[in-house]
């Protein structure tokens, strides 16, 4: 098991190394094959690990150390991994979805330059992400955390010849860095107060060391939240994700939908014991999640770029996960991560097919009528959108989203406005998902289809569509049909917070399910009835107020504008003002002082012997005078 577990992590790293070093000299097919097969091996190994783990079910998880990373001053993090229910679910999703996306990319990216570089970065990403979720100590977790950030940066700027892509990459990197700094401070703090960075030790010692509800515990949890919101693109650090869509579509599917952006969710779930000690921080997580899901729902509603719609919807779905974490419904958050990985990756990949078929057109109003030309992309996108809109009973998203809403309703940490907003967002989600479905795939065809997807791409879409429907059936709510192996399995990794019981109030649960189903269906209906005649555009055109609201939502509620005003502009002004570097003046001052001295003294070098004689005599006279005066005294 230990060998298989290390295989899971190391194979993608090895292949990334090979691809990045000698990939440019390989034939394209070989580079693609190495990229896909390595993640495939990783997936197979993960399945072996899973079957072993499920057979043995070690109560404390399974831990294995490769070697001690460093041992200095009491800090002795190892290159060590710990497998428990949470990380097992994470690695299964990462390797499986990652494998499928690699296969898709091997075909969709085939005509691009830098094919081997692409797979090198992707493999590096998968390796880093696996390190992040399997890490036994926080330092190794942080290494993976920064590794995925680096790969995100590299892949957003993959088409680096266009300066906008480079800027988007920098934005993503810098904005997430703000959160990472908070996380780094949290790590220092944890090490100072616990003397170790081992996650298990910290979590078991936390209740004794930190007073529940104390300011220290809250502040510590808030610093961790800072890291999580940066990585997971939640308010207030969400602005980088829509711009990150500048990267290739498989990157958006893998990194900015299925896996990396959920790292923040994983981090909070992993350190959930710290959060139970800090109820205000828990509440903050729930509020951040709810506000974010509400905020990005409205932004998604008016975007014109198909990938930006999906980006905002990712932000909103992660908002659901944060809401679940905030009310202590840990398993619901991870369950939603599990289903979301499938249907959001599916949506991105079939959107990628549509974009490729329309001469790389991203604007949904310029696309249209692709239903007939791309039947597989249409049906799979429809399934993905249905799952995203939580179409009742038949989709995965329905079960996971309802477990979150039910958590927000039943948890003592929840509040009515949290689950009410979550319910309203169900409606909005359905509207914007089916708006895209309608505008892109229905109506009349506006452009001829320039490219059809390959067989492998279609296969990947079908597999993901299958899981977008069925992945939810292993976490059914009690009130419908008691079958929730995933949820019960996940519970072994968490300490349930004392006050949180899933009281078996079947009537309330059924009521919530009905309301959310009705809202979802209503949303789908609204989208279709509005966008059939594009009534929405008509309303916007007619009323200046609606137009203002529209452009407000379109710009992501002005967050970019605000940050530009508050941080970017002042910083640039300061940088411009200080462009010659104030501190450098000290050193250039020393240099110019030497230069001035040089010009003074070198002017004495006249070459005239009389002047030299005069200065000699003057000097001699002065010294003689001094000597005479001193002897007199």
């Amino acid at each position, binding site marked *: 098991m230990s060998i298989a577990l290390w295989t899971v992590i190391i194979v993608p790293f090895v292949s990334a190394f090979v691809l990045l070093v000698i990939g440019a000299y390989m034939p394209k097919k070989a580079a693609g094959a190495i990229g896909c097969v390595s993640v495939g091996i990783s997936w197979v190994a993960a399945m072996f690990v899973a079957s072993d783990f499920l057979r043995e079910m070690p109560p404390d998880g399974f831990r294995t150390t490769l070697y001690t990373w460093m041992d200095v001053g009491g800090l002795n993090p190892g290159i060590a991994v710990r497998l428990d229910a949470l990380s097992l679910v994470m690695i299964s999703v990462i390797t499986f979805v990652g494998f499928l996306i690699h296969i898709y990319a091997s075909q969709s990216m085939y005509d691009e330059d830098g094919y081997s570089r692409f797979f090198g970065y992707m493999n590096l990403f998968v390796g880093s992400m696996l390190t992040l979720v399997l890490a036994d100590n926080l330092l190794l977790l942080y290494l993976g955390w920064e590794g995925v950030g680096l790969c995100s940066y590299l892949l957003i700027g993959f088409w680096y010849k266009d300066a906008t892509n480079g800027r988007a990459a920098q934005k993503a990197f810098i904005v997430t860095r703000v959160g990472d700094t908070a996380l780094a401070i949290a790590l220092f703090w944890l090490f100072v107060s616990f003397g170790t960075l081992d996650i298990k030790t910290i979590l078991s010692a936390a209740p004794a060391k930190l007073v529940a509800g104390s300011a220290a515990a809250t502040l510590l949890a808030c610093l961790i939240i800072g890291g999580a919101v940066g990585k997971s693109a939640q308010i207030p650090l969400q602005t980088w994700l829509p711009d990150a869509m500048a990267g290739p579509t498989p990157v958006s599917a893998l990194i900015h939908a299925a896996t990396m952006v959920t790292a923040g969710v994983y981090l909070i779930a992993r350190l959930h014991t710290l959060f139970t000690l800090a109820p205000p921080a828990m509440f903050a997580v729930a509020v951040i999640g709810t506000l974010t899901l509400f905020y990005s729902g409205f932004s998604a509603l008016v975007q014109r770029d198909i990938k930006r719609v999906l980006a905002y919807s990712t932000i909103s779905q992660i908002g659901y996960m944060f809401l679940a974490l905030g009310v202590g419904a840990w398993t619901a958050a991870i369950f939603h991560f599990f289903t979301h990985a499938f249907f959001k990756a599916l949506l991105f990949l079939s959107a990628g097919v549509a974009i490729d078929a329309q001469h790389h057109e991203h604007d949904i109003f310029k696309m249209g009528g692709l239903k007939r030309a791309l039947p597989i992309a249409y049906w799979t996108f429809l399934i993905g959108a249905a799952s995203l809109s939580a179409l009742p009973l038949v989709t995965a998203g329905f079960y996971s989203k309802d477990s979150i809403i039910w958590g927000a309703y039943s948890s003592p940490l929840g509040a009515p406005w949290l689950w009410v907003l979550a319910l309203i967002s169900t409606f909005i989600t359905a509207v914007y998902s089916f708006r895209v479905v309608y505008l892109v795939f229905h109506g009349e065809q506006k452009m001829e289809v320039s490219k059809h997807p390959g067989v492998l791409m279609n296969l990947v879409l079908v597999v993901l569509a299958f899981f977008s429907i069925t992945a939810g059936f292993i976490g059914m709510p009690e009130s419908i049909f008691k079958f929730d192996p995933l949820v019960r399995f996940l519970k072994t990794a968490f300490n349930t917070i004392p006050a949180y019981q899933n009281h078996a109030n079947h009537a309330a649960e059924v009521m919530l399910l009905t309301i959310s189903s009705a809202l979802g269906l209503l949303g789908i209906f609204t989208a279709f009835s509005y966008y059939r005649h594009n009534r929405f555009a008509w309303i916007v055109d007619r009323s200046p107020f609606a137009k203002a609201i529209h452009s407000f939502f379109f710009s992501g509620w002005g967050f970019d504008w605000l940050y530009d005003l508050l941080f970017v502009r002042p910083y640039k002004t300061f940088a411009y003002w200080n462009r010659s570097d104030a501190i450098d003046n000290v050193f250039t001052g020393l240099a110019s002082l030497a230069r001035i001295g040089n010009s003074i003294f*070198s002017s004495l*070098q*006249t*070459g005239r*012997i*009389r002047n030299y004689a*005069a200065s000699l*005599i003057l000097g001699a006279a002065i010294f003689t005078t001094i000597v005479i005066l001193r002897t007199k005294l």
Partner: protein
Amino acid sequence: MINHAMMFAGLLFVIGAVGIMIRRNLLFMLISVELMLNAAGLAIAVGGSKWSQPDGQVFLIMIFVAAATGVAVGISLLLANYHERKNVDADELSLMREREPIEQ
């Protein structure tokens, strides 16, 4: 007596020093150097006579020898320069000054 002699030596020395500083003619500068050396020799000789020591006279002889040697070298350099440049102006010999390119 010693005061007068020393003042005379000092006067000679100052005349020599001023001569070096204000004259441009190399020959006169050389003579001024000799004047200064003589002033020094006179001071030493007077000192020797004051304290009844022979050392003063010994050093006076040595100074004469050194001065004669210096004059020999100086005069030959002066003549070589005169043959080269047809003048004996010290200020013309400022090739080692700062910031002016050496003419080849």
